[in-house]
């Protein structure tokens, strides 16, 4: 696929900035509706990132499932539980917050150090490729479909069972008690 490099490089800087601000917004905003909308911004930016990384199927799946279903579900839950009659008397900053911020900052700094100090393209990955299968596949979706139906067939079926169980379980848990 011919990637228009200049457009993608132009898109990279505002995408990074909105990801950083969105991540801060999810965690630090006190109004939880703003926090849920900021999560939607993060999910959109990640989906655009997937398009830059030539993963178009995952990008569309992200938009459909994460933004279209999970974020809407979170907004539903936020609206259902946002009762101003019971205010939240929590202290805004405790000692545990400081300890967690120190730990998370050190985790982030160690991850940055590791990422910048590894020669990524010196790693040689030898893998046996199925020449017969992959010769005619040019499209990303065709490759994913071929692998899902041959190599990853069992996880595919198990995922469908997991989704069925999750659906039934969520309905059973959240069902209103019927008083007869």
């Amino acid at each position: 696929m011919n990637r228009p490099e200049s457009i993608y490089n132009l898109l990279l800087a505002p995408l990074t900035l909105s990801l950083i601000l969105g991540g801060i917004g999810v965690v630090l905003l006190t109004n939880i509706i703003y926090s849920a909308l900021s999560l939607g911004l993060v999910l959109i930016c990640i989906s655009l990132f997937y398009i830059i990384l030539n993963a178009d199927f995952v990008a569309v799946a992200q938009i459909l499932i994460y933004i279209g279903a999970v974020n809407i579900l979170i907004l539903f839950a936020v609206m259902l539980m946002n009762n101003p009659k019971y205010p939240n008397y929590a202290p805004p900053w405790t000692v545990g917050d400081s300890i967690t911020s120190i730990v998370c900052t050190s985790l982030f700094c160690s991850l940055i150090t590791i990422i910048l100090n590894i020669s990524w393209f010196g790693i040689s990955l030898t893998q046996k490729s199925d020449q017969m299968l992959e010769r005619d596949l040019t499209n990303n979706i065709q490759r994913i479909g071929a692998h899902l139906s041959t190599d990853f067939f069992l996880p595919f079926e198990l995922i469908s069972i997991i989704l069925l169980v999750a659906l039934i379980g969520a309905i059973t848990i959240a069902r209103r008690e019927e008083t007869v």
Partner: protein
Amino acid sequence: MLEHALILGAYLFSIGIYGLVTSRNMVKALMCLELILNAVNLNLVTFSYFFDSRQVKGDIFSIFVIAIAAAEAAIGLAIVLAIYRNRKSTRIDQFNLSKW
């Protein structure tokens, strides 16, 4: 470009862990969990693009992670709703229903 994407994934992961540990509202904790899962997905797709263009195994794994995250968000929010109906509060540090 590779380090750029990996550092973004690491940033989202650490922000997600901070939010998950320090949030007092349960729905905010679930939102930060979604942030963590998205950071992992970003890493997977990045590695799939740079190292595995022929068999896009990272993309397939990230599709499974998206499906599992959706199922877990549904059940997590159902549990939160049931507890809220019982307790009328969403503060996560007042939960002693499972205390033994």
